[in-house]
């Protein structure tokens, strides 16, 4: 036990590792915030495309399905390697000069957009058809009905699963560290290589947990609040 503590949670090493891990962790937070913002928007667009009615939209629906099926099934590690190692070689100057961090954000966005598209879609489908019908019968167009009636209800319902996916995204920023971005986990490895002590990982873990616990509690809070409101509405 003593040896375990010494190797992974040594108080002296903890203090020593803190500054480097912290500066690495800021990169995690940075990647996370940008990726989350991109995912929120792109996933919504793809979910909308997937729900478009009519024969004309069929190829677009097909593309959206192909995208979500493919990237939900592909490990992030593979996508991250492909982006960070492969994209710069495509010959586009903006990709050639992109930092590994930016390429990592692209990988995270590609994969998590696929997950979050499904979350949005479940939300959209959970809104009863009679709501859309009521909106359309007022003369609202398909897109207006979606925007003012269906999506506000759908998004409210999927906030808890969305937040869950974002907790996952936060943690997966560490995978990018394995491929050349000196974020918290990679800083932990640097520390271990220099001092033969793994406390740096523990420091990184503490940061991640500090970030996710409030988010997890917030999610619980939203779910509880909704349940009590729904129970009140049933009385």
């Amino acid at each position: 036990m003593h040896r375990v503590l010494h190797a992974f949670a040594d108080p002296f090493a903890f203090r020593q590792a803190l500054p480097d891990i912290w500066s690495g962790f800021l990169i995690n937070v940075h990647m996370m915030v940008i990726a989350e913002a991109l995912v929120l928007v792109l996933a919504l667009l793809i979910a909308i495309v997937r729900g478009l009615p009519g024969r004309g939209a069929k190829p677009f629906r097909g593309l959206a399905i192909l995208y979500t099926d493919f990237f939900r099934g592909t490990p992030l590690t593979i996508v991250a390697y492909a982006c960070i190692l492969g994209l710069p070689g495509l010959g586009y100057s903006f990709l050639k000069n992109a930092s590994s961090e930016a390429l990592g954000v692209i990988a995270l966005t590609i994969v998590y957009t696929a997950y979050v598209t499904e979350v949005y879609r479940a939300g959209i489908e959970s809104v009863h058809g009679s709501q859309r019908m009521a909106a359309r019968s007022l003369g609202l167009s398909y897109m207006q009905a979606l925007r003012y009636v269906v999506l506000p209800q759908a998004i409210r319902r999927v906030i808890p699963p969305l937040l869950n996916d974002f907790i996952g995204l936060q943690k997966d920023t560490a995978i990018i560290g394995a491929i050349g971005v000196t974020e918290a986990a990679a800083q932990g490895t640097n520390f271990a290589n220099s001092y033969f002590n793994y406390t740096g990982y523990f420091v990184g873990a503490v940061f991640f947990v500090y970030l996710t616990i409030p988010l997890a509690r917030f999610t619980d809070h939203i779910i509880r609040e909704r349940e009590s409101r729904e129970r009140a509405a049933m009385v």
Partner: protein
Amino acid sequence: MSFVSLEGVTKRFGDLEVLRHVDLDVNEHNVVCLIGASGSGKSTLLRCVNLLERVDEGTIVVDGQTITNGKVDVNALRRKIGIVFQAYNLFPHMTVLQNVSLGPRKVRGLERERARRTAMDLLRRIGLEDKADEYPDRLSGGQQQRVAIARALAMDPKLLLLDEITSALDPQLVSEVLNLVRSLTEVGMTMIIATHEMSFAREVSDKVCFLDAGVICEQGPPDQIFSSPNEPRTREFLKRIIEAGRM
């Protein structure tokens, strides 16, 4: 010249014919009531008139415009036809005021303040101005249905379709909704009403249609339909209604 005219309208869901060669004329400022058992096609008929359902055969003309040829602007058509549903279908994430002013703002293009005034006028008319900032789930069924009627009226429709709007209500809440509909007949609103409220149908309608298995079995003035129906099936239906104590 009738305001709404159905000719040979047939609607199928798969193999099931829910409407068969329906002919119906509704004059401007008239009220037509559709009666008949559940599943006889009343709701489907209403939904065909505002193109929530597409007809398989036949033509429907509304306000001089043929709407069944696939060339009509559906949104423009629905703008002048209001519909109220059995289950109210209010938007739960919006306040009463927002429910009523959504159409005027986004479809009629009124600016926020004017849409608000129009909506408040309507809420005053239905006696619910004090509920303007409440959400629908805080209202009784009768109040919700009155708001749904106000939401339809806010579009200033030329035709109103009422689809069994009292069927989901507790008995003591029915009259407040029917009183509101009655007040609409007095101002000359053209309406097609699917209903199980026979006394009300007899009182307000200019014409009553009895539907049976997707066919308009008999239509005529209310006194004739309710007092001396010609068709045996109409007689049978009314007999059962009376036996059930519903008239």
